């Protein structure tokens, strides 16, 4: 097991134990976003020249300002003390995946050649939840190359209902038919 996965599972244990998985996920994502936007903060937390006590102090202030939970603050203290701040991004990703597994949540990437309407999005999510039996957290993007239709990816599974896919299938059938 990789270190980031170990830390992610540990935080998931805490979040599930406190019964606040989604708030803690949100808080961690906000903190990671703040780190990504502030190079100074990132360098400060990563630098081995800065004593852990100073880092703890800054983290405490940031958590307080964010209104984040004590659980997140303690977790960040642990990461700083173990000098794993550089892995924080990967830890957040592993935590999200672990939380999704425990909560029965699937991330779905939905691509279409245009912006889907609210009804279409709702219908898609409902269909996916019926299909998978789990809660779907969708993310949408526009891909004009699809020409028309929709493409859905959940993990390594792809459902492709795009016109591009239909044309690709047509091409494959034509090529196979001549051999």
């Amino acid at each position: 097991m990789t270190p980031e996965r170990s830390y992610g599972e540990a935080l998931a244990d805490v979040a599930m134990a406190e019964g606040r998985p989604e708030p803690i996920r949100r808080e961690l994502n906000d903190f990671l976003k703040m780190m990504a936007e502030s190079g100074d903060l990132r360098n400060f937390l990563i630098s081995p020249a800065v004593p852990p006590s100073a880092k703890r102090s800054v983290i405490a202030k940031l958590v307080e300002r964010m209104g984040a939970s004590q659980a997140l603050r303690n977790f960040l203290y642990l990461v700083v003390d173990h000098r794993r701040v550089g892995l924080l991004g990967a830890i957040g990703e592993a935590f999200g995946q672990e939380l999704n597994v425990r909560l029965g949540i699937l991330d779905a990437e939905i691509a279409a050649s245009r912006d889907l309407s609210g009804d279409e999005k709702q219908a898609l999510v409902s269909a996916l939840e019926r299909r998978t039996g789990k809660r779907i957290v969708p993310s949408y993007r526009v891909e004009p190359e699809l020409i028309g239709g929709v493409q859905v990816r959940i993990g390594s599974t792809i459902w492709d209902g795009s016109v591009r896919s239909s044309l690709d299938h047509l091409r494959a059938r034509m090529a196979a038919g001549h051999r």
Partner: protein
Amino acid sequence: MRLRSPKAPFRLALELAAGAAALLLLVPVAGAAQSAPATATTQTVFRWLNFAFVFGLGGWWVWRRLKNVFKSRAERIAAFIAEAEATRQQAQARLQAAEEKLAAIERETTEMRDRARLDSAAEAVRIRARAREEAERIERAAEAEIASAELAAANRLREMAIDKTIEYARARVMGRLTPELDARLVGRFVDALGRAGGAL
């Protein structure tokens, strides 16, 4: 071959001179013994007898001497003849051997020529066969290459045709795909997705 003594000619000449001197001595003695003409016939007879005796004695002596000479010469000649015969026989044997060798050489030459002719003919046959096989191999390879090239060209042509067809279909779809049609596509996809195990 018997060799003749180097003193033999000298002795022969000495004996001949002594015989002639005795003959010359006897003639005056006989002449002095005759004193009267009546005895002329007797003298003549005596002279002839004396002559015959001396001649016979000289002839016998000469014959005795010459016989050995002739005999030794005949022996030498016979030895020469025998030697010549042996030499001739040796030469004949050498000639025969040379002729046999020559005949063998000629026979061998003929055999070699025949063998060379046969080998040459066989080699020509082999070369022709090898050339024919090589030509056939090249022909087969060329045919295979042509067939492969034809197949590749046909495949390429087919792929180009398919590409053009798909490109044309894409253009047609993009030209005709209205938001309403796209919404129907999405709706059909959602319906298929919602059916558990349904094909999309």
